[in-house]
């Protein structure tokens, strides 16, 4: 894959010299994202200013067979933006405008580089809500969220990013600019390319604009915490809560190690002696919320919760949610290499999966803490180790392989929200089977004949 000086000159002609980076110190920061243990340097970094420039860059890359890796905020945890084959990193942070918010149609039209939080706040000011709520919302971009089909803390009741994408503007690797879907909730003309591109992890097209659905902001909300003796007990309570007929907006769990780490950072007065914590929340009309929260609390007590406390104002509820969002980095205080993984099992198998993870950790003599979205069956087993201990790093790789196998065996999957990227690619065949992987490759080839877009990831 030749990256030449002439190619660089062409890039400069397209985006302008000030938006092209070629020096070693300019490229190094783009050698990695939030994924540990993955790193590779690009040959160039470009910051396009609009879809036309994106189109010109991609067309040029296709002509010269140079890899292009789209990048939002680089907060993904699957090495999705690591340029494993070199080439060009295409950074979309300059495209960061909110183009439109339509109250009447309950939608927003945004450029991909807008951060999730910026969009949420803009919607909030209008009495609306952008529902997807990944833990990384302050950092991550809407484009990155759509490309990874990000989930989050409201997944149980509201689903993931996919449910909120109405239409996309996307640039194909060959340079054509397409518009899929649009402003309509109902539109079934043609294959659903909007859904195909959502979660395509930057391997089929570069998203340059998105139309996303908003909902009226709920009038009230409530949040609470229940402590249990063990994570298994907490998982048991999850089943009881759902069976009690409530569908909470938020149902998150943290094991003992996570609670301690989070408390250390956020100092919220969490009980660090408990074996696990369930964080639950609901939103909607105040009365309904109060009733649901009460029912969840009772279900927890009936399942043997040590203690249930409710957040009595929005600030303390927000603090609890914020604490949950920082579980990963807070855990990293325990050791400087922190490998967070992402596996999902059907909700009734949650407790079993937690048990298996514990066994695997013990067998490999590893420190694995687990937190996640209990309501979705989405777990984040997180291994904390010392990077100098190569033996432990080896064992961690083995352990995670076993964890993914266990998830598949229990009817689950190898990633619930972080995506496949380069990190999970080796496990994809196990999950999808050869026929489907072959189909994925044919789809990839139809979009990207020269195979330039984010090689080494999905479709490779």
């Amino acid at each position, binding site marked *: 894959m030749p990256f030449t000086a002439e190619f660089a000159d062409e890039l400069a002609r397209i985006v302008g010299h000030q938006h092209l*980076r070629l*020096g*070693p*110190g*300019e490229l*190094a*920061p*783009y*050698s*990695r*994202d*939030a*994924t*540990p243990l993955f790193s590779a340097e690009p040959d160039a970094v470009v*910051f396009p200013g609009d879809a036309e420039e994106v189109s010109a860059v991609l067309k040029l890359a296709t002509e010269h067979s140079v890899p292009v890796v789209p990048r939002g*905020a*680089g*907060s993904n945890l699957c090495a999705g933006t690591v340029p494993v084959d070199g080439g060009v990193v295409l*950074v979309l*942070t*300059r495209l*960061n405008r909110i183009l439109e918010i339509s109250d009447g149609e309950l939608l927003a039209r945004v450029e991909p*580089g807008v*951060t999730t*939080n910026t969009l949420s706040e803009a919607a909030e000011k209008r009495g609306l809500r952008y529902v997807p709520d990944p833990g*990384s919302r*302050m*950092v991550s971009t809407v484009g990155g969220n759509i490309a990874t089909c990000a989930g989050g803390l409201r997944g149980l009741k509201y689903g993931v990013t996919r449910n909120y994408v109405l239409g996309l503007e996307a640039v194909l690797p060959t340079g054509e600019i397409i518009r899929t879907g649009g402003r309509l909730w109902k539109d079934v003309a043609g294959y659903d390319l909007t859904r195909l591109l959502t979660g395509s992890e930057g391997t089929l097209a570069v998203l340059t604009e998105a139309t996303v659905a908003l909902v009226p902001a709920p009038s009230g909300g409530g949040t609470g915490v229940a402590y249990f003796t063990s994570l298994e007990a907490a998982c048991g309570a999850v089943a009881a809560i759902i069976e009690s007929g409530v569908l909470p907006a938020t149902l998150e769990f943290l094991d003992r190690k996570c609670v301690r780490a989070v408390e250390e*950072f956020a100092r919220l007065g969490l009980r660090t002696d408990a074996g696990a914590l369930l964080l639950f929340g609901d939103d909607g009309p105040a009365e309904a919320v109060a009733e649901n929260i009460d029912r969840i609390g009772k279900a927890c007590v009936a399942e043997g919760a040590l203690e249930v406390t409710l957040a009595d104002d929005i600030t303390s509820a927000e603090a609890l949610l914020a604490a949950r969002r*920082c579980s*990963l*980095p*807070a855990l*990293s*205080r325990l050791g*400087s290499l*922190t490998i967070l993984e992402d596996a999902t099992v059907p909700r009734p198998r949650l407790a079993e999966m937690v048990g298996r993870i514990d066994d695997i950790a013990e067998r490999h003599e590893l420190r694995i803490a687990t937190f996640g979205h209990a309501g979705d069956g989405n777990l984040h087993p997180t291994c904390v180790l010392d*990077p100098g201990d190569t033996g432990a790093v080896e064992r961690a790789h083995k352990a995670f392989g076993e964890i993914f196998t266990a998830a598949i065996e229990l009817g689950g999957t190898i990633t619930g929200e972080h995506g496949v990227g380069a990190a999970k690619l080796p496990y994809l065949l196990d999950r999808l089977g050869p026929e489907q992987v072959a189909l994925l490759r044919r789809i990839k080839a139809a979009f990207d004949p020269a195979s330039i877009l984010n090689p080494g990831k999905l479709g490779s």
Partner: protein
Amino acid sequence: MSGVFDAEKLGRCISCGFCLPACPTYALTGDEAASPRGRITLMRALEEGRLDVTDPASLEQSSFCLGCRACEPVCPAGVEYGTLLEQWRDHQWQGAARPVLARWLMALVSRAWLLRLQGLVRGHARGKGEPRGAALLLGCVERGLYPEVSRAARELRGELAAPSGQGCCGALHAHNGDSRTGGAMAALVGARLPGVIVTTAGGCAAHLAAHLGRERVKEFSEYLAEHEVVPSGEVRVAGRRARVALQDSCHLRNALGVFAEPRALIGAVADYVELPGAAGCCGAAGTYSLLRKRDSMRVLAPKLDAIAEAEVDFVVAVNPGCLRQLRQGLKSRGSTVRAIHLAELLAMAQRDWTLSKRKGDA
């Protein structure tokens, strides 16, 4: 491994990117290289020898960074970015790589007799006799530019001794690639002023606290709060209580966690107005506003907009660099808002100060 950086501190960062939204230079550029995480990746490349000490991009980033440390309180992994930045500059800003102006200023402030002379000429506060418990630090910049600040501080708290010949705390050195001298200067100040040191400059407070220990260093508002001092009077403008906003000092807020105290004190003597983004850097950042004027102004611009929108009478700063930055910015926009130091505002209140008419009012 080249041993430039403290390995444990550099290893803390897990590249989660939580610091990105807090960083003013990332906000300006959207460039990973101009973010705390990107800069740490650069430091690692330097440490591992993958990047040369003369690399222009690395030099540029070490200077583009404001050193505001807004990335620290938001980092859940507890990365001590400020220390890493000092180590980075120690490594990169040697010889000709250090800006001429910085070299000149560093030479100036390391001469105690020059500082003393300058202070005498400008008439900073003087307190005879032995320090009774606490000593007032006469910041090197403040002595030259704003001697009225130390005078106001003494007016408010007569018990603060202000011996001259105390020297400079060395923050300027530490932030410009010579942290060894910066540390030695802090130790010297510590020896010359035994006991608690009170300072009216957020930058000096953070630097001194890092070297002498947190207990020995009190920023002025913190000192007042600890002694439960509440000024008796109030500041009025055109017959009503003045509307007053605060610009946090980055180092005070991000390194020492002091931000509630100045707000409470302002609220005691005037109507406190919270500016959106008050916690964000104003772009002064020590010598930054001199060395990188254009970027410094880009960082300041949204703040000036916010001040204009807030319709305040005063903007209070708790650090001389920020004061200078705000004054210049407000002046360039022809604003009638006055930027003053917290000590001055409180002294005004003590004198039951009333501004009868605002410039421009009918």
